[in-house]
C-alpha cells in the first residue's frame, strides 16, 4: 500500500442531530437473573441503544481495529455534526487513540432531542471533513520536506465516512453534491496556501442508519464516480449488530485486511480445571499474510466463512503443539499486526494474554492431503501481537557448500570464543533520540566502536600471544575505549608492570607452537614477540587521546629493551654461559653436551611424577657444578618440553646453532660494566623510574 493512499486520512463524520437520539429498538437485557435469586425480584427493563450510541460504538470499533493494525501513518479525524461541527481530534499522531476519541465523545454527549431540527444537519460536518482533508498531516509534511524539489510526489487523498440518518435518495445526492462542491472550493483555497494541500482523490462512504423494524428510505449503491476527484457509495444498514458487521467489513476493505480464525485452541475451563475445551478466535490483519493462499487458490479450500456474516471470508489455521522456542530463528517472510474481532470475549483474551506473556504459537494449515504444513506463527513483541508468515516451500538455497569447504575453512584455531566475547561487547541497544547532542547517530557510533575494537584483532589463536594471556586482559579491554580515565591509564600501567614482573620471574608464555616445528621460540624470544604485539595493539590507539599515548609510552619504556638491544643482551648472556661452561668443562664438545642433555631429559621424563623433578635433574647432572645463572635457561627448556613431550632433534640442533652464533656477537655491555661478572638487571624497577632505563640503554650503546 502506498503511504499516501486514500487510507492515509479518514474523516469520520457522525450525525449528532436530534433524530439520532431515537432508539435503535434493539433491546439489551442487562439484568440476567440467576435462578437462585430470581424469586420475587422484578427484573430491570431491557435498555436499548440510541442510533447515536450505535453509530459511536461501531465507529470506535472501526478505529480500534485500525489503530491495532496500523498504530501509525493511518490517521482518523473525528467530526460530529449538529447545528455546527465539532472536531474532536486532529491529524496529529498523538491524537490518534480510541481513548482520546472516547474522552472527546463523552464531552459531546448524546444528541439533544429537544434541539431545533431545522438548524441541525450533517452537512456542517461534511464541509468540515473536506476542509480537514486539505490540512497537511505530519507525515505529508515530513515527506514533502525530505523530497524537496520532488515534493509534488506527495499525494493528498482521503476518505470520508459519514454515519447519518438520511431522508431519501435525493437527500443522499444532495450530500454528495455538497461534498463535491466543497472539494472544488477548498482546492481553490489550498492552491494558494502553503499549509493546505489540494485534494486529489476523495472517497465518500455514506452509511445510512435506520432503527430496527423500520423500512429503509435510502437504497444501497455501490461505488460510483461523482467526478474525477470524488467517488461515492451508499450503505443502508439497520442499527445494532448489522451496523457493526458493516463497519467491520468496511474497515477490512479500506485497509486491506483479512481474517484468520485460529481453531482448536485448548483452553482450561473454569469449572472443570482438569479438562480443556477447544475454542476458535478470529483475528484481523493485513491481507498479505494470506498471500500464499490467494496465489495458490487455496483460499476457498482452506477457509470457511465466518460465523458472523456470510459476506466475509476467513482462513482457518490450526493451533499447533508443540510450541516454538524464542531462540529459534524461523524463516519468516512477513509479520503483520493483528486485532481480535471480538476483543472482549473470553477465548480472545485468553489467546492474547497467552501471547502477551511471551509465548509463541505455530499455526498449521489444514490441507487436503492431511500432511502437516506449518504456515504461520503468532508471537508478541513488546506488547504487540504479530502474525508471522513462515515459508513452507522448498528453499533454493538448499544443500549449499559447507563453510568448512570454502575459504578459511581448513583453519581450525579461530578465536571463536574471543570473538563471541567481542560480539557481546558490541551488542546493540536502542538509544533514545536526542537532537543536536552529537552529529553522529548511535549506529554510526556503533560502527566507530567496531572500528576501534578491531584495529588489532588477530583471527586465529596461533597468531597472537597477548590475547591468550589473562594478564593482558585489563589493558586490552581498556585501550579500545574512545577515551580513557586516569584510573584506566593506571590500570594499563599496572598491567604493563605486571608483564615486566612476569618477564623478570621468567614466567612461561602461551606462545602457540602450531605451525612452527619443534617447541617454538625461546623464552626471551617469546617475551620479545609478546612485547612487540602489545606495542602494535597500543600503537593503533595512540591517536585517540593523550592518555592512550601515555599507555604506549609506558609500554615502550617498560618493555625489556628495544628489540635489537634485547637481541644483543640475550646473545651476550648465552655466550657468557657458554664461556662459563667451556671454562669449567675444558674442551668438551658442544655436541656431546647436547646428547648428554638429552639423556638427562629422558631421565627427567622417567621421574615425571616427582615434584622436584627439575631441580633433581640439575643436581644429578654429571656436568656439575652448575653455574647459578644457568638455571633459568634450563627451566626455559624444560617447561615447553613438559607440555610437548621429549625434545626433538631439531630443537637440539637449533639450540646448538643459536649457542654457536651467540659467540660471534659482541659482548653484552652490562657484563663489561659488571662487578665480579655479575650485573644487575632491571635496575629501573628498583629505581621505579622508567627514565633510568633509557639512560642505561643509551649508555650501553
Amino acid at each position, binding site marked *: 500500500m502506498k503511504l499516501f493512499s486514500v487510507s492515509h486520512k479518514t474523516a469520520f463524520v457522525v450525525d449528532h442531530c436530534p433524530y439520532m437520539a431515537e432508539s435503535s429498538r434493539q433491546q439489551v437485557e442487562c439484568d440476567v437473573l440467576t435462578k437462585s435469586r430470581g424469586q420475587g425480584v422484578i427484573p430491570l427493563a431491557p435498555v436499548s441503544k440510541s442510533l447515536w450510541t450505535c453509530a459511536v460504538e461501531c465507529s470506535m470499533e472501526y478505529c480500534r481495529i485500525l489503530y491495532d493494525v496500523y498504530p501509525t501513518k493511518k490517521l482518523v479525524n473525528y467530526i460530529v455534526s449538529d447545528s455546527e461541527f465539532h472536531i474532536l481530534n486532529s491529524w496529529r499522531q498523538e491524537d490518534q487513540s480510541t481513548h482520546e476519541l472516547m474522552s472527546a465523545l463523552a464531552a459531546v454527549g448524546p444528541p439533544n432531542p429537544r434541539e431545533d431540527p431545522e438548524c441541525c444537519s450533517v452537512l456542517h460536518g461534511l464541509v468540515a471533513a473536506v476542509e480537514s482533508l486539505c490540512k497537511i498531516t505530519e507525515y505529508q509534511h515530513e515527506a514533502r520536506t525530505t523530497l524537496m524539489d520532488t515534493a509534488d510526489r506527495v499525494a493528498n487523498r482521503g476518505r470520508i465516512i459519514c454515519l447519518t440518518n438520511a431522508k431519501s435518495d435525493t437527500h443522499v445526492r444532495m450530500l454528495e453534491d455538497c461534498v463535491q462542491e466543497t472539494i472544488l472550493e477548498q482546492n481553490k483555497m489550498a492552491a494558494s496556501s502553503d499549509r493546505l494541500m489540494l485534494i486529489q482523490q476523495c472517497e465518500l462512504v455514506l452509511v445510512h442508519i435506520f432503527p430496527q423494524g423500520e423500512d429503509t428510505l435510502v437504497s444501497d449503491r455501490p461505488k460510483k464516480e461523482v467526478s474525477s476527484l470524488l467517488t461515492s457509495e451508499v450503505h443502508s444498514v439497520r442499527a445494532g449488530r448489522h451496523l457493526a458487521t458493516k463497519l467491520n467489513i468496511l474497515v477490512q476493505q479500506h485497509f486491506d485486511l483479512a481474517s484468520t480464525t485460529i481453531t482448536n485452541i485448548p483452553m482450561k475451563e473454569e469449572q472443570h480445571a482438569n479438562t480443556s475445551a477447544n475454542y476458535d478466535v478470529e483475528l484481523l490483519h493485513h491481507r498479505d499474510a494470506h498471500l500464499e493462499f490467494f496465489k495458490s487458490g487455496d483460499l476457498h479450500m482452506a477457509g470457511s466463512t465466518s460465523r458472523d456474516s456470510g459476506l466475509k471470508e476467513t482462513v482457518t489455521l490450526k493451533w499447533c503443539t508443540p510450541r516454538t522456542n524464542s531462540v529459534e530463528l524461523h524463516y519468516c517472510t512477513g509479520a503483520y499486526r493483528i486485532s481480535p474481532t471480538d476483543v472482549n470475549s473470553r477465548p480472545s483474551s485468553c489467546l492474547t494474554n497467552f501471547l502477551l506473556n511471551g509465548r509463541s504459537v505455530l499455526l498449521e494449515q489444514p490441507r487436503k492431503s492431511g500432511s502437516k504444513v506449518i504456515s504461520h506463527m503468532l508471537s508478541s513483541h513488546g506488547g504487540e501481537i504479530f502474525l508471522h508468515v513462515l515459508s513452507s516451500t522448498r528453499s533454493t*538455497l538448499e544443500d549449499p557448500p559447507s563453510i568448512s569447504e570454502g575459504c578459511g575453512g581448513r583453519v581450525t584455531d579461530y578465536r571463536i570464543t574471543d*570473538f563471541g566475547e567481542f560480539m557481546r561487547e558490541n551488542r546493540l541497544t536502542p538509544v533514545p533520540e536526542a537532537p543536536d547532542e552529537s552529529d553522529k547517530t548511535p549506529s554510526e557510533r556503533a560502527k566507530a566502536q567496531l572500528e576501534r575494537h578491531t584495529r588489532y584483532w588477530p583471527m586465529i589463536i596461533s597468531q597472537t600471544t597477548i590475547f591468550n594471556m589473562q594478564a593482558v586482559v585489563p589493558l586490552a579491554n581498556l585501550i579500545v575505549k574512545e577515551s580513557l580515565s586516569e584510573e584506566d591509564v593506571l590500570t594499563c600501567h599496572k598491567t604493563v608492570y605486571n608483564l615486566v614482573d612476569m618477564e623478570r620471574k621468567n614466567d612461561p608464555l602461551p606462545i602457540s607452537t602450531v605451525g612452527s616445528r619443534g617447541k617454538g621460540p625461546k623464552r626471551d624470544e617469546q617475551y620479545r614477540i609478546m612485547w612487540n604485539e602489545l606495542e602494535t595493539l597500543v600503537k593503533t590507539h595512540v591517536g585517540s587521546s593523550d592518555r592512550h599515548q601515555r599507555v604506549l609510552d609506558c609500554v615502550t619504556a617498560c618493555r625489556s629493551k628495544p628489540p635489537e638491544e634485547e637481541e644483543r643482551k640475550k646473545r651476550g648472556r648465552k655466550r657468557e654461559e657458554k664461556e662459563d661452561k667451556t671454562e669449567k668443562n675444558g674442551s668438551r664438545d658442544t655436541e656431546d653436551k647436547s646428547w648428554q642433555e638429552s639423556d638427562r631429559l629422558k631421565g627427567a621424563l622417567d621421574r615425571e611424577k616427582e615434584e622436584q623433578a627439575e631441580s633433581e635433574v640439575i643436581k644429578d647432572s654429571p656436568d656439575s657444578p652448575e653455574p647459578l645463572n644457568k638455571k633459568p635457561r634450563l627451566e626455559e627448556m624444560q617447561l615447553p618440553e613438559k607440555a610437548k613431550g621429549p625434545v626433538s632433534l631439531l630443537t637440539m640442533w637449533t639450540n646448538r646453532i643459536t649457542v654457536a652464533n651467540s659467540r660471534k656477537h659482541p659482548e653484552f655491555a652490562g657484563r663489561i660494566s659488571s662487578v665480579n661478572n655479575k650485573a644487575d638487571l632491571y635496575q629501573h624497577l628498583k629505581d621505579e623510574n622508567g627514565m633510568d632505563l633509557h639512560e642505561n640503554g643509551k649508555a650501553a650503546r
Partner: protein
Amino acid sequence: MPTVVLMDVSLSMTRPVSLDQGSEEFQRKNLAVAGLTMLFEHMATNYRLEFTSLVAFSSLWELLVPFTRDYNTLQEALSNLEDYDKTCLEAALHGVSNVVQQEWGHACPTQVVLVTDGSLGIGAGSLRHSLQTLKPRPEDKKFPLPFPFPAKLFVMCIATMEELQVTDSMDNLEKLLQLNGGDGQIFTMEGQLCLKSVQSMFGRLIDAAYTPFHAVLHCGNLASDVQVFPRPEPVFLDEEVDPLPRHVLTDLEIVGFIEIGDISSPPVTSRHLVLPIAVNKEVDDVGTGTTEEMEEETTANQQAGKAPNFCVLLHGSLKVEGMVALVMVGPEWYGMLYSQADSKKKSNLMMSLFEPGAEPLPWLGKMSQLGPISDAPENPYGEDDSRSPFPLQPQAKRSYAQNVTVWIKASGLQTDVQKILRNARKLPEKTQTFYKELNRLRKAALAFGFWELLKGVAELLERECTLLPDTAHPDAAFQLSHAAQQLKLASTGDSQYAAFDHNINPMHTDFSGGGAGM
C-alpha cells in the same frame, strides 16, 4: 533464484542460417544450443548454486530436465533435442508456471529464459492470437502472465531486430514483457546470424542476470571478500514517493550484534548465502589457457582454505553465541547475518534482508538509533546478561493489551453489568474492584452517549441495596446507594458529574476505617 530455460523446438527453429559460402550450414537451433551451452558453462563455473530446469515446447510442452544444479545433465538434454511442429507459447508458459509453482511455491522469484526464433506461430495458439483474446476470458483460462510468482522474463531471439520488426513479433514480445509487469528484457542478435553473435547475445544475458554478486563484508577493520548468492535484487519501496529502486551496496557493513531471542524471527524480503571468496588479483596477468586458469584456481582455493577468513570466524561465533550480526547493506537498509544449518549438519553464513526503511522491525525501533552498549548509562543487558533492552515497547498499548470496553454484542454489556453486580454482593471486601468496574462502565456509557444504561445500572444497584441480607456489612448499603446516586447524576449529562476523566470514588464511611463501627 531458479531459472527455467524455455526452448522453442518448433520446426521453424530448423531454418538454416544463411552464411558465407563454403562454411558449414547452421540451423537456428544450433545457434540456440550454442548460446545455451555457453550459458550453462558459465553457470557451472561461476553461478553453480543456481537451480535450472529445461522445458522444450512446440504445440505441446515437455519438462526435459527438472530443476537441477547438474549442468552436465542440462547440456546432455540440449544435445538430444528433437524437432517438433508449430510454436504455441501460451501453453508453454502455463507449463512453466506449473513447473515453478510445484517446485518452489508462489513466493520464489524466478528467471525464465525463453529461447525462440521469433516466429511465434499462426492462428489459434499463436502468441498474436493469445494476446488478442486476453480480456474476455473465464477465470480458469486466463493467460499465464503475469506469473503468480515474481518472475523475470528474458527473451533470447535467434533473429535480428530487423527480422522481428518486419512481422509483428517484436510488438507481441514487448506486450508479453509488459504483461509480466515489465520485468525482463528482450535480446536480439546483432549483425549476421552466426556463432559469434549468438555468443555475444548470451554474453549480454549473463551480464544482465548471471554475474555473481561480489561484495566486501566489513566488521570494523576486519573484512572478507564474499559472494552473495542469489544476487540481491533491487527493491522498490513506495513507487509513488520514491520511484527509484534501491540496490544492495557492494560494501556490507556490520553495525553490531543482537541476540536471536531479541531479533525474534523477523520478517525478511530475501535470503542469501554469504560465501567467502579468494580474490586472486594476479589472475588477470597470468594464464591464458582455460585449463591453466582452472588449475590455478584450484591451487588458489586450496591456499585460500588455509588462510584465516573473517567469514568463518564470524560464522563460528554467531553459531556458538546464538546471535545475529546487524548489517547495513545500503542507506536506510539493513539485514542480518546468522549461521544457518541444514539437515545434513552443514552450516553456512546467511544474510537475510529486511524491508528497506528506517524502522523495518518495530520491536527494535529505528535502526539508526541502535548504538553501542557504552552509550547507555548502565549495561542494558545487565552485568550477568539477565536483561535485554529489547523488545521496544510501543508508546500506546494495543486494544487487546488494555481493558477496552466493547458492547457491540449484548454479551459484552451483560458481562460488564454482571461483573459489577457480583462485586456489589461482596461489598465491602470488593470495594476496590466494584468501583473499578463501575467506573469502566461509566466511562464507556458516557462516551457512547448511553445514558439510559447509567440509569439502569443505578436502579440495579438500588435494588441490590434492598436485597442485602441482614447479615450484610452496613458499609455495603452505603456504598451501593452512593454509587447509584453518582451514576444517576452522571446520566443527566451535568458536566460536574459526567466528566469522562472523573471517577466515582468509594464513599468514606465510619465503617470503612478499619472496623470502627463493629
